[in-house]
């Protein structure tokens, strides 16, 4: 089955359990949202999926289209089609967006094959236009001196250029004003389709007005406690996380 699958995942950092028995499956072609209060382990989940070296998986499995992701380095996972839009993207001083993306795309080509430059720039400019980014942006160093909105837009630009099979968007809405949020949502919605599975991680329901999910999961204390359709987000907004927390004792297996 073509899906990004998490099974009974347990994650610890410095002996502290952050994720405790989380299960989840995002089929390719669907958009799933994970909502949860601060400290519920949402960002940890995102980083573990991407292969951050600081986190230890003590139990459980993560697979992508049936392949064991935990056995792979972060860069292998990325080249095989997993993308993470970071909540706090790193600066890469002195490396321009154009050169960075070029190196990222080049890393996906077989040895000895060179990325075709004119095609690359044509695609880059097309995606930038979609995201309302000025062309001069390509010559700026990655995230260096960027505003919050510019950083998030740059993450979505990379998503659009790298065309992953699965994308995890970690708090992509945080720090965005409503106009920037709309632009980012438009970017994601354009990419929506049978070839992309999306996992949206968010604290607020607001983003889900613009990127309407197929499924919503509520995460509390390192577990999924409720799963449902898009209306679950509205119910959660209305009743608050305490309502969701009440169900935390009994873990629910998503889908």
């Amino acid at each position, binding site marked *: 089955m073509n899906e990004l699958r998490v099974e009974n995942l347990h994650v610890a950092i410095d002996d502290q359990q952050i994720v405790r028995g989380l299960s989840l499956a995002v089929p390719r072609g669907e958009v799933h949202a994970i909502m949860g209060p601060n400290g519920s382990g949402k960002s940890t989940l995102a980083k573990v999926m*991407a*292969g*951050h*070296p*600081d986190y230890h998986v003590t139990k459980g499995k993560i697979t992508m289209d049936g392949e064991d992701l935990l056995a792979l*380095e*972060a*860069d292998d996972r*990325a*080249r095989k089609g997993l*993308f*993470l839009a*970071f909540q706090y*993207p*790193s*600066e*890469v*001083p*002195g*490396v321009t967006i154009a*050169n*960075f*993306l070029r*190196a*990222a*795309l080049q*890393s*996906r080509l077989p040895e000895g094959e060179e990325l075709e430059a004119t095609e690359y720039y044509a695609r880059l400019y097309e995606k930038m236009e979609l995201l309302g980014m000025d062309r001069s942006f390509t010559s700026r*160093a990655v995230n260096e001196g960027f505003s919050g909105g510019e950083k998030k837009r740059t993450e979505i630009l*990379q998503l659009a250029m*790298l065309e992953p099979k699965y994308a995890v968007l970690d708090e992509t809405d945080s720090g965005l004003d409503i106009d920037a949020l709309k632009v980012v949502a438009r970017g994601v919605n354009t990419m929506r389709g049978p070839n992309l599975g999306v996992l949206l991680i968010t604290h607020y329901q607001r983003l889900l007005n613009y990127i309407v999910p197929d499924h919503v999961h509520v995460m509390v204390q390192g577990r999924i406690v409720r799963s449902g359709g898009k209306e679950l987000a509205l119910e959660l907004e209305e009743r608050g996380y305490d309502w969701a927390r009440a169900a935390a004792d009994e873990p629910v297996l998503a889908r």
Partner: protein
Amino acid sequence: MKTETKAVDINRNIGDFSYKVDYAKDAGTGLSDKTIHYISDVKEDPDWVREFRLRGLKTFLEKPLPTHWASKDLEAIDFDKIRYYLASGDAAKQTWEEVPEDIKRTFERLGIPEQERKFLAGVEAQFDSEAVYSNIKKAVGEQGVIFVGSTEGLKNHPEIFRKWFGKVIPIADNKFSALNAAVFSGGSFIYVPPGVKVKHPLQAYFRINAENFGQFERTLIIADEGSEVTYMEGCTAPKFETTTLHSAVVELVALKGAKIQYITVQNWSANVFNLVTKRGLAHEDAEIKWIDCNIGSRLTMKYPGVVLKGRKARGEVLSIALANNGQHQDTGAKMIHAADETTSNIISKSISIGTGRATYRGLVHVPKHLKNCKNNTECDALLINSTSRTDTYPAITVRGTGNAVQHEASVSQVSAEQIFYMQQRGLSEAQAMSLSVNGFVNDLVRQFPMEYSVELKRLIELEMEGSVG
């Protein structure tokens, strides 16, 4: 003190080789009056050069090693085991066809492509002590530009050569400039007549190709009034088991309104002591710019300088140093302001990998009686591993009023988060690291000529290969 330097095992497919050369002229090992007379006899030196060499030897023997401030590793040099002169005995070749086949093979492995030659106004390639190949494009020659080996320069153009030789860097400047004075051979002599702007960079490749053999080239460049010239020097040395000493002296003279740009990209193997003295003398409204790139070697000590002698003279040093395991890059710049309204700019970036150590030493001197002088110094260090080391010793003396000086220094590290971010986009850890390092030096490299910036990028990638995993 004897220390063992273990070379980091990196891929040096290029530059790691040597071919058998029939050394017809060989001064043996060690240094004495006899060695000097031998060299002078073989080279058929004029008397004044022989005397210059003998004075050099005397000064060298009298001066102590500068180990009270510099690395004690200098004491590991065994001057008695070094071969101070070696030449094939042939006269400099004028055409490519005359160059011996095995030497051509060396150039091929070095990647000096035939098509590149058309970009170069002239190629002066030093193979061991003597220039075996020297070819000056017709156009440059017709402009009256002289571009020859230093030996040919002092013999055929004494009226210009003698006037400036040893004037910018006197024999007694330091122990190693004295050593060079005693045993120099090879290097370039360039004279650019007034008003002539040399369009293409003049280029020379230097190599060391004999075990225990020191290379002591001597370069003198004179840009006459209102002229402009760019000189490029590149090195990739073969790897040997025992210590190799390289101690060059480079003197630049920019007369009124002239511009000289001197570009070096050096990639020494990890057993080389690279102890070089480089200085320029900038007259009124003249400009001297050193672009200096140091990769490899066991110990490099090099502080290119400019003496700003005339009003409105400008001096600049842009340098990049990369110190890998067991290597020490002790580099920097000297700016001696000696006239009003002179300006100088120093930008230095260093990268330390593994147990590598990068040291910046800067000297900026503006005396009290001068007006409207400016200096800007920036030195940035990047540490790759927790065992890497960097030190900064800026000595800035600015006296009087109306002179401005600015100094900025930074030390940074490539963070684990940054590497993870780049890996998440598909780059391997090594690729991420080398892209970060290239980013760190990017704003400086952009000022390099195209072919050098590409070469440098490749060299950095090679050096980074051993640093992760």
